[in-house]
């Protein structure tokens, strides 16, 4: 392996670094829509190969004889500056791909749990996931037309999230609205860091 950046001018990084934010939530809540609303590129899709049991395949030996399936990941990109790129990854909606959530959330600066008031309970698993891993997250309520209007207290109760978790209303199709959600995630991550310091 070539020794990285050895001949690089200090004011001109050759390879940027990256951070990511995970957009999680149940099936069809608008995760990909949100990624697309803020991404500078049309959301991209890539595929990870899994065994039928849902385990990640990192070994190609004999894989042709196995029953495999693929899980698609959607993601978008925001170039912060020439040295830093932010990626937004939507989680796969189906529950059997939990292990992918792990890969996606490791090293992430924070997460959005997107919920749909017509199926609030679908957000419960995601809330639990990020709480257990101490990953800063905000709950974003995607306000589909005709959705129930709950009070925020009712929603917190239904999702079992405490007052310390920000809860925001949003429209996943609207760029400014999604930007505001991301800002809340980052601010929340900063607050948590501050508390720890």
């Amino acid at each position, binding site marked *: 392996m070539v020794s990285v950046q050895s001949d690089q001018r200090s004011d001109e990084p050759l390879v940027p670094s990256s951070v990511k934010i995970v957009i999680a939530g149940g099936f069809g809540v608008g995760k990909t829509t949100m990624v697309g609303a803020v991404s500078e590129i049309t959301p991209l899709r*890539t595929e990870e190969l899994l065994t039928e049991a849902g385990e990640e395949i990192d070994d190609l030996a004999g894989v042709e004889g196995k029953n495999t399936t693929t899980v698609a990941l959607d993601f978008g990109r925001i170039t912060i500056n020439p040295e830093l790129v932010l990626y937004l990854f939507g989680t796969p909606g189906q529950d059997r791909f939990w292990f992918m959530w792990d890969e996606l959330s490791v090293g992430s600066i924070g997460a959005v749990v997107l919920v749909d008031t017509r199926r609030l309970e679908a957000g419960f698993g995601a809330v639990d996931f990020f709480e257990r891993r101490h990953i800063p997250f905000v709950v974003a309520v995607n306000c589909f037309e005709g959705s129930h209007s709950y009070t925020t207290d009712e929603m917190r109760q239904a999702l079992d999230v405490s007052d310390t978790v920000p809860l925001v209303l949003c429209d996943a199709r609207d760029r400014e609205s999604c930007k505001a959600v991301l800002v809340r995630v980052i601010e929340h991550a*900063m607050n948590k860091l501050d508390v720890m310091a």
Partner: protein
Amino acid sequence: MSQHSADWWYDEAAGPMVRPYAMVSGRTRPKPAGDELTLTTQVRAIRTSSDHGSLLVEHLEIIKLCRKPLSVAEVAAYLNAPLVVVKVLLSDLIQRGDVITRDPSRTAVPVDMNLLQKVLDGVRAI
């Protein structure tokens, strides 16, 4: 940015998986050079005098894509190939020195205030 032809890896008769696996000739894992590749690891091709004669057309495609830095996930998406295959191909190129990588924010470097402030400013600015 142009998406590559959606099925250029795929062999109509033989099914979708044959092409990628044949391509990496059943190789199991990325070589040591590729061990650290995650979804967001940035890779970039550098100009070398290395002989490209032994490279697969897919390797060359990656080198072309990575003239500007891209993440592993982006390379996989533009090539329309499974991540596991792209990691093998990338690790070949890293080993050869045709592609370099860096990702200090991955695990070893903690997420600090300075980094978060930059991300915050960047998101506010879009």
